C-alpha cells in the first residue's frame, strides 16, 4: 500500500465563544495521495472551510492531527498554499508584485534574482495573466483576480494546493473557463489539490474523489465517492457520459436526500 501523503487523522474542531461551545467537525479522517484532486462538498455552514483552514494551519485542530508527509501541520506555510475565495490579492501591489512577493519569500535563498523574475512570469503565463502584470488588482476582473491568486499559490510550489471555493464568486462562464485552466494545470504539474466547493458539477468535473460532509453541527465525512473518470476530461463529452451522470447523481442524492439542509428553505 502506498504511504499516505496527506493524512487527516480523527480531527475534531470546536469553537468556544464565551460560555457557548459549538462542535463544528467531529472525527474527520481522510487520506489523500500525492497528485490526487479531492473535493470537499457539503451544505453551507457544515465546516468545509474550517477543515481547509486546519489543513492550511490557519486554524489549530482541537483534537486529532493533520500529517503532511508524516510531519504534523500546526502552523501556516507556503507548502500548503491557499487560493482564497475572495482572491485576497494585496490591492497596493501590481499583479506581478503580488506573485513576486510570494516567490521572493519562498525562494529568497535558493534562487537568484533573475530566476525569481522568470519564475514569477512563468506562473503568470501559466494562468494566462502575463499580459496584465503591471495592473493593480482593482483594474482587473474577478476571474482575472482569481487567476492571479492561483498563480501566487502555484508559484510557491506547494506540496498541497488548497482551493477555498475558488470559483464561488464568479459568473458561470468565467467559472467554466477557470475550471478548464485548473484542469490543464493539474494535468501538467500533477499537484495534490484539496478543493472546497458547493457546486456538484464542479466537484465531479475536476475531482478524482469527492468527500461529502454531513450537516453540522459535529459534521463528519458522510461518504467518499470515487469519480472514476479518466483524464483528460472534456466538459462537453462528459455531459452524456454514464459514469459522469452516475457520479453526479450520487453526490446529489447525498446532498438532497440523505442530508437535506433543513434550514435552507
Amino acid at each position, binding site marked *: 500500500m502506498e504511504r499516505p501523503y496527506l493524512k487527516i487523522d480523527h480531527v475534531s474542531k470546536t469553537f468556544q465563544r464565551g460560555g457557548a461551545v459549538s462542535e463544528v467537525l467531529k472525527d474527520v479522517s481522510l487520506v489523500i495521495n500525492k497528485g490526487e484532486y479531492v473535493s470537499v462538498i457539503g451544505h453551507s455552514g457544515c465546516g468545509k472551510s474550517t477543515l481547509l483552514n486546519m489543513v*492550511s*494551519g*490557519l486554524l489549530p485542530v482541537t483534537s486529532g492531527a493533520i500529517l503532511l508527509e508524516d510531519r504534523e501541520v500546526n*502552523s*501556516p*506555510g*507556503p507548502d*500548503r*498554499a*491557499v487560493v*482564497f475565495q*475572495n482572491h*485576497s490579492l*494585496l*490591492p*497596493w*501591489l501590481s499583479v506581478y508584485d503580488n506573485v513576486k*512577493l*510570494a516567490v521572493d*519569500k*519562498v525562494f529568497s535563498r535558493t534562487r537568484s534574482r533573475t530566476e525569481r523574475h522568470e519564475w514569477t512570469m512563468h506562473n503568470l503565463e501559466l494562468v494566462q495573466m502575463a499580459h496584465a502584470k503591471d495592473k*493593480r*488588482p*482593482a483594474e482587473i476582473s474577478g476571474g482575472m483576480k482569481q487567476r492571479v491568486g492561483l498563480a501566487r499559490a502555484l508559484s*510557491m510550489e506547494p506540496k498541497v494546493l488548497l482551493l477555498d471555493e475558488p470559483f464561488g464568486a464568479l459568473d458561470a462562464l468565467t467559472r467554466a473557463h477557470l475550471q478548464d485552466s485548473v484542469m490543464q494545470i493539474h494535468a501538467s504539474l500533477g499537484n495534490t489539490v484539496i478543493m472546497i466547493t458547493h457546486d456538484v458539477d464542479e466537484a465531479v468535473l475536476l475531482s478524482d474523489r469527492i468527500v461529502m460532509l454531513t450537516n453540522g453541527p459535529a459534521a463528519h465525512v458522510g461518504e467518499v465517492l470515487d469519480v472514476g473518470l479518466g483524464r483528460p476530461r472534456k466538459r462537453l463529452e462528459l455531459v452524456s457520459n454514464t459514469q459522469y451522470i452516475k457520479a453526479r447523481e450520487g453526490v446529489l442524492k447525498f446532498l438532497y436526500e440523505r442530508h437535506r439542509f433543513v434550514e435552507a428553505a
Partner: protein
Amino acid sequence: MSLPLFKNDEPLVKPAAQVLSLPARVQARKFMFAPILRKIATAVVPPLVTVIALLLIWQILCDKPGATLPAPTVVWKEAKDLIIDPFFVYGTQDVGLGWRVLVSLERVAIGFGLAAVAGILVGSLIGQSDWAMRGLDPVFQVLRTVPPLAWLPISLAAFRDSSPSAIFVIFITSIWPIIINTAVGIRNIPMDYRNVAAVLRLNAFEFFYRIMIPSAAPYIFTGLRIGIGLAWLAIVAAEMLTGGVGIGFFIWDAWNSSRLPDIVVALVYIGLVGFVLDRVVGFLGNLATRGTAAS
C-alpha cells in the same frame, strides 16, 4: 434679426453630412479653453467675492475715528513692507515674515516628523497587540486631552531651553491623533491579508512594511493630517511664550509694541501656511493610498 440667423444656419446644415470629423475637431480645440476657464472661475470667484465682502464689512466697521482695530486700508499703509516683501532682512530681529514662517516651519518639521515616526510605531503596536491596547490606550486617552500649552512649563523645566521645548510641545500635541488613527487602521486590516501573510510566513518586519503600513495608510494619513493641523496651532502659541524668531513670537512682539497692523498680516500668513500644510499632507496621502483606496 431673423435674416442673419437664417443665413448662419444654412451652411451648418449642408456640410454636416459630408465632412464630420474635421470641423468637429476644430470646434473641440476651440472649446478646450472654455471649460478650463469656467472651472477656474467657479473655483476662484466665490471665495474672491467672500473675501472682498469681508474686507468691505471690516473697512466699514473700523473706518470710524476711535475704532479699536485697524481697517484694511490702515493695515496696507502701515504694514506694506511686511505684505510686499516677505524675505527682507534689516537686522537679526527685524526680518520678513517669510523668514519667520520658515523658522516656525522648521520647528514644526522636527516636532511633527518625530511625532509621525513615533506615532506610527506606537499606533502599530497598540493596533496589533491587545495587551498594549489595554495598557496604553487609557493612559493616552487621558494625556491627549491635555492642552498643548499646559505641556510647556514641564518641557521648559526639562529641557531648560526654549527651542527644544517648543519642539516638544509640537511633538506631544500632534502625536495623539497619529497614534489613535494608526491603531484603528491596523485593527481594520482585513483578515484576508493576515492570512496571506501567515501562509507566506512573513516575519514581523516584513509584515509591518508589506502589509500593515500600506493597508493602514488611509487611516495613518488621516491622523497625520489632523496632527499637522494641531502642530501648526500649537507652534504659534508656544512661540509666543518661548520667544525667538518664529511667527508666534512676532505676534507677541507686535502686541507689546502696539503694532496691530503687523499682527493682522501675521494672522493671514499663519492661516495661509496652515492651509497649505493641510493640503500638502492631504495630497501626499492621496498619492500614497491610491492602491488601497480602490480595492
